[in-house]
């Protein structure tokens, strides 16, 4: 028996004028899940959060929380809290005052409010700054106050709208892990919005990739990365070589794709019939690059290195295959041996297994 979802978007459509921001979208989010909404700018991520928080009402469909329709429930009565993209801290209140704001609305006893504020301050390690005003804080500290404020009421669902966008790279990476740890400790449902695929991959249990107000794919991070269901998802999540070809033969476990004399074996991850067009999605790191051809490889092609990008842990090689196709391969610098150093204009041999590629039909 499947667990009942905590949050359900049931065929939700939201329009602004004649622009459709959310288009007939259906999505389930489960209790204690760390759920990421990933998508390019303007695809409707914030709008989806605002529908759940109650700042927007769906034009069609329903938003359910714990099985109950939220239609007509104003934001201030929803057991959902949001950490705003801009933090939206009250400039006239201290850090402690900001955190206490929501608790005061619940008319909790004073002692309990003070206790809860202290607990939150300790959680985000801001105890020493409790009496500061927001404009006396650094960006990272403000972000923590916003997080503490949205967690103080112990919401059923915490909505985080690009919570790390304003932080510098190093702080952002540290905070990702803190968020993940926090979510596990509090056992609350987190819904995070981001357009950074690394961020989504690092923190989330499940990811929904959004495009133009629709869900393109939902799944655990590895699934999204290893088994994208469309060229669009494959390209949005990480780097990929998309090789278009004609299906020539379909075997039970793999498919033969042909293109300009290049023949590819791809695991049959999608149902195709001979004569149709399909794509093989190949991640650069799954392609081996060497000076000599290896006989054991089931897929291989020769080409000339046109460009090398050194990225620290990996190097990326742009290779023009003899058939004219340009393919990118990546190799960990740790596994590169001096004797094998590959340079620009070298003739190289690329190889990959049938399982390395994903067969896509759209």
């Amino acid at each position, binding site marked *: 028996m499947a667990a009942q979802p905590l949050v359900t978007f049931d065929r939700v459509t939201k329009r602004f004028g004649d622009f459709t921001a959310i288009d007939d979208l259906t999505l389930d989010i489960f209790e204690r899940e760390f759920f990421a909404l990933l998508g390019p700018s303007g695809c409707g991520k914030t709008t989806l959060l605002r529908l759940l928080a109650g*700042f927007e009402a769906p034009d069609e469909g329903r938003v359910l929380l714990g099985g109950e329709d939220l239609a007509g429930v104003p*934001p*201030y009565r929803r057991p959902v809290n949001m950490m*705003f993209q801009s933090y*939206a801290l*009250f400039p006239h209140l201290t850090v402690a005052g900001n955190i206490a*704001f929501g608790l005061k*609305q619940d008319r909790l006893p004073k002692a309990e409010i003070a206790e809860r504020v202290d607990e939150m301050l300790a959680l985000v390690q801001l105890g020493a700054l409790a009496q500061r005003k927001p404009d006396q804080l650094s960006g990272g500290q403000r972000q923590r106050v916003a997080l503490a404020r949205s967690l103080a009421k112990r919401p059923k669902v915490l909505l985080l709208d690009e919570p790390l966008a304003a932080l510098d790279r190093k702080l952002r990476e540290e905070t990702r892990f803190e968020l993940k740890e926090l979510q596990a400790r509090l056992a609350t449902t987190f819904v995070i919005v981001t357009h950074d695929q690394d961020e989504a991959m690092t923190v989330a249990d499940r990811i929904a990739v959004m495009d133009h107000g629709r869900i393109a794919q939902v799944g655990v991070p590895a699934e999204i990365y290893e088994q994208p269901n469309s060229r669009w998802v494959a390209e949005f999540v990480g780097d990929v070589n998309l090789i278009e070809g004609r299906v020539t033969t379909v075997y039970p476990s793999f498919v033969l794709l042909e293109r300009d004399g290049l023949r590819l074996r791809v695991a049959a991850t999608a149902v195709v019939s001979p004569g149709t067009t399909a794509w093989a999605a190949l991640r650069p790191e799954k392609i081996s690059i060497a000076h000599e051809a290896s006989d054991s490889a089931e897929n291989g092609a020769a080409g000339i290195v046109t460009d090398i990008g050194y990225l620290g842990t990996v190097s990326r090689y742009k290779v023009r295959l003899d058939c004219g196709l340009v393919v990118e391969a990546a190799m960990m610098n740790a596994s590169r041996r001096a004797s094998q150093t590959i340079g620009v204009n070298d003739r190289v041999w690329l190889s990959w297994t049938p399982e390395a590629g994903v067969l896509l039909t759209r």
Partner: protein
Amino acid sequence: MGDMSKTTNTRSSRLIVLAPYAWLVLFFLAPFLIVLKISLSQSTLMQPPYAPLLALDAGWQGLKDFFGALSLDNYAALFTDALYRRSYLKSLEVAAVSTAILLFIGYPVAYALARAPRRWQAILVLLVVLPFWTSFLIRVYAWINILQRDGLLNDALLALHIIDRPTTWLATDSAVYIGIVYSYFPFMVLPLYATLERMDESLLEAAADLGAPPWKTFFLVTVPLSLPGIAAGALLCFIPITGEFVMPDLLGSSATLMIGQTLWTEFFGNRDWPAAAALAVVLLVILAGPILLYQRREARALERR
């Protein structure tokens, strides 16, 4: 090199800062010293109607005579005569009550302006100030017309059956309040609008998100954040209303004798320039507090930007 451009920069910026002070000395401090001097003089029937006059040709002795003849008698008279005290108090009362009424009416109007669709805001703000492009006197006479016994106000109230016989409006406190509230309306609305319009709407959403219904959000977030606007509007109204002359004179009665009228009577009616000057100096001293407060706020707001 960078240092040099910096010093010339600060020098020229110092000059720019000095310009308004020169202006103040010329058009505020100098006239004020003259008024202060007259307030310490005695009333005479000569031209000019006060003594002593500074006689520089009499040398050192003349200077000594001049300062010897100055006295605080006029100020003493201000405090002993109940008429003066009453008009000061009346002025402060009218200014305080009018400012409160203005805030009460102006806040919702400014709030509505700030929340109106962007493309309408400029036009709506224009509508608030538009009446003030016609002559002030014409508008005052229009009010006299509206407030008189068979005027528009009584006609409207009769038609709505709120009153069943014409009420006297002219020459009452109500008329003075109506006139003052009307003429200072933009001075309250515009500063309020300026702060409310700048307010981050996501703060209101954050308050709602944290469980505050709209009315609580208004008192816990909107009002505290618009305090600079409230202070600016209140001071911008309170200070000039205290010295208001036209409205109480044309719309009020002898019961609404404000300090502006008393001063006018002393100056033009009794030709007692020293008494009038003393009245003006005391008014300035009373208003010095609010004026300084206003200046400080403005300076701080500028600094923050």
